């Protein structure tokens, strides 16, 4: 028996019944004894099944294929199983599977290309890191702002103000009645922990409480201090205590509004002052 290379074309001819007995026996004995040939033949058979399912066989080949591969219930079942797998891979099966397969296809396309996956992974890593850092920063800022507002609320509670009276560091009049704004300077020493402002309230109506919004000019962030109380000592003044650390060097604006018993906010007054450190 003459040995001949077992090419894909020869295997396919064998599977389609197009080889003579001698070649057939060579291939069959190779199928039995040679594991490599065994796998190649079965892989070729799978390809043939796929070609049938893709309708790419010639009419003659299709008829031979059907008589050999679709004659029994088991063979038909195998064809259906093959079709199910192919449909899955082609995203043509049920919706859930299709969604999975499309996603897998995308993942696979990405995963198979190192020149794509490396920059994409690096970019994703950087983006995720930045996102996490940003989130942490925001959370930290939010927490520190919350802590500061709680501290300010405590500093301005009636009991604290009453228990620890102190002379004001600065008395501020609304800008509507001041000629030169930058004369209101507050010198904050390194040893200062609290500063106390007195905001002159010139409106006719007094309110049970006041609400101040303190903002450094040029900075979007602001501190909101509610439930401030007015003192009627030669006109109404509102005491506002702030932690010194909350006032870096710069120009500040305070908007102050009265809040009536129903919680309705009245017209605002505006104050400005400079912090010098």
């Amino acid at each position, binding site marked *: 028996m003459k040995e001949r290379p077992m090419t894909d074309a020869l295997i396919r001819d064998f599977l389609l019944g197009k080889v003579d007995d001698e070649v057939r026996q060579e291939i069959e*004995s190779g199928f039995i004894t040679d594991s490599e040939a065994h*796998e190649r033949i079965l*892989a070729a058979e799978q390809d043939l099944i796929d070609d049938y399912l893709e309708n790419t066989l010639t009419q003659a080949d299709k008829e031979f294929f059907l*008589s050999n591969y679709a*004659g029994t219930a088991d063979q038909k079942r*195998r064809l259906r*199983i093959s079709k199910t797998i192919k449909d899955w891979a082609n995203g043509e099966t049920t919706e859930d599977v299709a969604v999975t397969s499309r996603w897998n296809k995308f993942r696979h396309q990405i995963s198979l290309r190192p020149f794509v996956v490396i920059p994409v992974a690096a970019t994703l890593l950087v983006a995720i890191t930045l996102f996490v850092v940003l989130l942490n920063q925001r959370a930290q800022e939010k927490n520190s702002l919350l802590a500061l507002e709680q501290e300010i609320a405590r500093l301005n509670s009636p009991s604290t103000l009453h228990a620890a009276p102190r002379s004001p560091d600065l008395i501020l009049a609304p800008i509507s009645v001041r000629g030169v704004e930058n004369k209101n300077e507050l010198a904050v020493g390194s040893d200062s922990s609290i500063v106390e402002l007195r905001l002159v309230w010139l409106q006719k109506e007094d309110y049970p409480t006041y609400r101040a919004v303190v903002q450094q000019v040029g900075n979007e962030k602001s501190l909101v201090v509610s439930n401030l109380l007015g003192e009627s000592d030669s006109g109404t003044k509102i005491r506002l205590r702030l932690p010194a650390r909350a006032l870096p060097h710069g120009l500040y604006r305070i908007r102050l509004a009265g809040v009536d018993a129903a919680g309705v906010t009245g017209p605002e007054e505006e104050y400005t002052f400079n912090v010098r450190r």
Partner: protein
Amino acid sequence: MARNSPAPQESFNDVLAWLDADREKAAVMYVQLRHDLAKIFQWNRCIDPEGLTDEVFDRVAKKVRYLIHTFEGDPRLFFYGVARNLIKEVPKKMRTQVSLEDVDLGAAPIKDSRNETAELRDDCLQLCLKELSSERRELILAYYSREKQAKIDHRTEMARQLGISVETLRVKAHRIRSKLEQCMERCLNSKSPRED
């Protein structure tokens, strides 16, 4: 095929011993050989490939004590020789052509002895896919994701990216698909046993 006279258990043990001195290896070879012979009968368009395979083993079993001492070479080739003789003896399939309508897989489900639906096959596929590693799942998905001409270029590109030959990729995909198909068959058998 009706078996003439099944071989006794002692002969079966001798057959295993002839295939390999290690009984476990011999058992694996036996199962594989049965499968391969059935496949060969199928390729030769024989009716009842499983029954013919039984007949091959019965015939070999009757001579095995003699063969152990006389036959030189791979014992599997002797089994194959017996199979070839059987192929010449038995009639080929009476029905050499099957109408296309009978197996038109794109059409309505074909009735057979099992009550298998497309949904059931999809369910089994999903179950069996879970048994594959993600790497294997993605490989087989990519391998079968294209059809017709496009698949040739796609598989060539896949092989290039994986740093293997197209042939190696094909065998790799074949192994995975075989496992998947076997798993699906088991799954379908458990969910829709034969009625006959």
